[in-house]
């Protein structure tokens, strides 16, 4: 390679580097708001599977508009909607007082199911008992009337909870704990899947997940005598229910509105039922 060519090549690499650095600092905003770019949803991991299902079908119907769904938790969804990082924030709890200022549209209703290991003979727990477990006051399955060991080496209850920003946790705390704090000895997991996996593999575990995510690896028990199902949630007999919300800051953009309309339409609500959640009861709004 001649001298000039070698120098030129080096210079080009350096120039490229400089261009790249300039690109990132100045053009950063360009990729975001534009034409034909993807719709971004972010937030609750409970809503995520439903949103992804709707997105998958939506994309087939409306060619050319990709939809990207992120997790992060309900509070992350609120934040993303507020910051503008996402077009639609997903939340599985009602917005807190300091979070007003976002438009919330309910696309589904979901129940928070209490789950135990299938080997656990318990079928029903009252509010006092659940609160006692999660406060760390009731620590043994024998205190709840279980005879002998369920399968582990002791009968100590393994308490599993979601992380603080989770909408599922908020719904649980509102319905069960009131103002009291969940014990800091509880195992904290950051997704429905891991909560379910722990309860499925540890005979002494108890946890709570979205009803739509219950599989036969775990057993959903009755709360205050009522088993969670679409019927009991609709009548209000099952107390632990919460809305799945799509949040936007102000009026949704046309693209977002289109997606929301689809979700609320008959196809979207059919998908809601398919995902194991409860349709909002209106056929399009």
């Amino acid at each position, binding site marked *: 390679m001649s001298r000039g060519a070698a120098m030129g090549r080096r210079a080009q690499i350096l120039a490229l580097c400089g261009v790249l650095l300039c690109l990132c600092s100045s053009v950063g905003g360009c990729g975001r708001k534009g034409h034909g770019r993807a719709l971004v949803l972010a937030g609750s991991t409970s809503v995520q599977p439903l949103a992804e299902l709707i997105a998958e079908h939506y994309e087939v119907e409306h060619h050319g508009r990709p939809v990207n769904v992120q*997790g992060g*938790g309900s509070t*992350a969804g*609120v934040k993303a909607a507020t910051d503008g990082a996402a077009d639609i924030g997903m939340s599985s709890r009602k917005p807190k007082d300091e979070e007003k200022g976002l438009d919330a549209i309910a696309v589904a209703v979901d129940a928070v199911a209490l789950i135990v290991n299938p080997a656990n003979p318990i079928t029903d727990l009252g509010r006092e008992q659940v609160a006692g477990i999660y406060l760390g006051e009731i620590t043994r399955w024998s205190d709840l009337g279980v005879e002998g060991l369920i399968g582990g080496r002791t009968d100590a209850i393994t308490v599993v909870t979601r992380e603080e920003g989770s909408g599922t946790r908020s719904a649980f705390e509102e319905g069960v704990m009131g103002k009291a704090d969940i014990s*800091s000895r509880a*195992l*904290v997991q950051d997704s429905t899947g891991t909560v379910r996996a722990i309860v499925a593999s*540890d005979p002494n575990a108890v946890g709570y997940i979205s009803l739509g995510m219950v599989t036969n690896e775990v057993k959903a028990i009755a709360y205050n005598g009522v088993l969670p199902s679409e019927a009991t949630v609709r009548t209000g007999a099952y107390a632990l229910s919460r809305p799945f919300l799509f949040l936007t800051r102000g009026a949704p953009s046309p693209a977002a509105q289109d997606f929301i309309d689809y979700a609320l339409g008959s196809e979207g609500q059919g998908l809601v039922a398919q995902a194991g959640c409860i349709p909002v009861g209106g056929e399009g709004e």
Partner: protein
Amino acid sequence: MRARRGEVAIERALLLLALSAVLMLGLIAVFIFLQGLPIMVKHGPGSFLFGTRWAPTKGGFGLLPMIASSVIVTLGAMVIAVPLGLSCAIFLSEIAPRRVANFVRPAIQLLAGIPSVVFGFIGILIVVPLIRNYLGGPGLSVLAATIILGIMVLPTLISIAEDAIEAVPRPYKEGAMALGCTHSQAIFGVMLPAARGGILAAVILAMGRAVGETMAVIMVIGNAAIVPQSPLDPARTLTSNIALEMGYAAGEHQQALFATGVVLFVFIMLLNSIATLRVVRGDRR
């Protein structure tokens, strides 16, 4: 003349590139400190470093359980990694025949390349159930994290320690053996003490790696924000604290996470400084 001016320009450009590493480090430090220090000052660093209640949405910012867990888990990982790793390092540099060494060394590097999430996954699959079924507790525990971390830092420790041992001048060993020492007496009596600067650097760098590990730890440690009182207790490290809550933290909560980052950052810098000084001092001999 023109070539000379071109040279100066090139030198300046390269200096800029070289400073970029320091610049990035400074930028990161500034960012973390800017976000994290104000809240530490506001609530007093004492309440952060020594407080025991972590409830960031309710004003509790005590990091002591996390600091304690990070320290315990790291020390535990060292208890596993140092004997095993040092033995492997000695093995590779002194005992192994050339062909065996050429096979073992890349194998250990391969261990270094495995993503941490895979380690965490294997931890959940194998280590956690073993602990739960044979030792007790929920399985997700300090012990599980210790074992996984110990394995993860092995490659770092082995390769740096091996270099340190290789660097010991041959006359040291030959002289000892000429005086009648066995091979192992020469190793333990002469070579290891001679290499101790480098070995210490290896241990410290491995410690830094252990303190900073996030994904694998989150998956196996249970994330309960308590001070662990036995290896079978769940716990939460500084890094898992950040990763667990980062996606959704807002306002003071977010600043509190940055404060956690500050503590981590300072700790790692200290460790690295000690290691670097050690290596430099070792080199000078």
